[in-house]
């Protein structure tokens, strides 16, 4: 399994997948829909799927002395690794905004979503949807990725729209809490996002393993 991840990183990965991790820094941009950073990270991952298909990686991987399911697991491991790198940046910067920068006027005047644990929960939801809608969709054929990516884009922007709109709904202002205000609510969103991420990723991986097993190469 670790060999598959090494193979993904050394052979299959597009350099853009690594570069686009830095979109996690969008967490610091005031007056911007910061959840787009999570979407851009998945856009970088999309480049790896493109590069992998151009390089006929599926056949190369299937010829290696591994189970076909290991090929799928290796790809998911790489995807989750990149997502977690981006998430780590977002988490550190969110904590910065929740502590040292909590009183910053530029963030206080921000009409858009604030960086707090709710934001991190939604970022995990976007990553989970990428793993389910795009990666899972790709492994239905192990070749076509246009439709799954369009679907993922739509789903991601619906999530971003909902996340941005939520705190404007009367009674739900608390989701845009600053610092450690309403920490219980913030934690609940983060845990729900984490649970959704794990669930969507694991179920999608299991489905992809089954689908890939059936495909004739």
């Amino acid at each position, binding site marked *: 399994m670790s*060999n598959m991840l*090494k*193979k993904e990183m*050394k*052979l299959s990965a597009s350099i853009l997948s690594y570069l686009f991790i830095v979109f996690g820094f969008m967490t610091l941009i005031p007056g911007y829909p910061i959840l787009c950073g999570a979407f851009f990270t998945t856009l970088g991952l999309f480049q790896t799927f493109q590069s992998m298909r151009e*390089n*006929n*990686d599926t*056949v*190369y991987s*299937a*010829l*290696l*002395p*591994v*189970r*076909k399911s*290991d090929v799928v697991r290796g790809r998911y491991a790489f995807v989750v690794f990149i997502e977690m790198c981006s998430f780590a940046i977002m988490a550190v910067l969110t904590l910065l905004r929740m502590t040292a920068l909590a009183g910053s006027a530029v963030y206080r005047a921000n009409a858009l979503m604030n960086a707090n644990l709710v934001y991190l929960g939604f970022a995990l939801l976007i990553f989970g949807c990428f793993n389910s809608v795009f990666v899972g969709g790709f492994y239905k054929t192990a070749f076509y990725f246009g439709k799954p990516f369009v679907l993922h884009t739509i789903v991601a922007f619906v999530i971003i729209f909902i996340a941005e709109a939520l705190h404007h709904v009367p009674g739900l202002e608390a989701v845009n809490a600053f610092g450690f205000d309403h920490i219980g609510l913030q934690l609940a969103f983060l845990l729900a996002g984490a649970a959704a991420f794990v669930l969507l990723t694991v179920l999608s991986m299991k489905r992809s393993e089954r689908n890939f*097993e*059936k495909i*004739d*190469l």
Partner: protein
Amino acid sequence: MSIVEVKGLCKKYPEFTLDNVDFSLEKGRITGFIGRNGAGKTTTIKSILNLVHPDAGEVSYFGMPLNGNEAEIKTRIGYSTGSLNYYPRKKLKDLIAVTKLFYPNWNDEAARRYAELFKLDLEKTPLELSEGMKVKCNLLLAMSHGAEVLILDEPTSGLDPFSRDELLDVFLQLRDHGVAILYSTHITSDLEKCADDILYIRNGKIIASETRERFIETMGQPGETLEEIMLRSEREARNE
């Protein structure tokens, strides 16, 4: 006991059916797999490598079914399906460095020897290689981990006669070390040089699976070469 056993392999496509394919490979023997284009050679090879899923049949290596033991079996066999058709812009040395991670028995010395024998420049990318050189690179990957069985789909296609001859010598050396080799080819003169057994497929059915001498005796007419036997046999089948 046979080192590879294939029993009742079936695969149905809309235009083609692989029909109840049975054969076995023995340690230290070279089996030439012959048949026309589209006869089912590649489908058979892909099926016994789990690249396509047979509708029925059993494939076992070293007494273990392929199903459930795929990873372990694949570390003990070498296979190449034609030329090197992946990662055209990666250096060969990088492809080798990643591939060898998966083989506990990878032998750097053997890889160096094959690179030298095949005159492969490992600093080059597949894009910079001729088709023949790509085949050689694939063979290097297939043969550098002490495989006990080699399964090769048209390994000599695209090779010049001298390189083919060199490769057949390598096959003979490997056979003497107990390696079982199955290779498909259209160049039947190669089989005259090195095949111990012949596996002949037509329209998805195995027509013959026997020693080369027995094949010539039963299928051939006096003085016929393997190519002539195959050509006559195919013509007769077409006229039936």
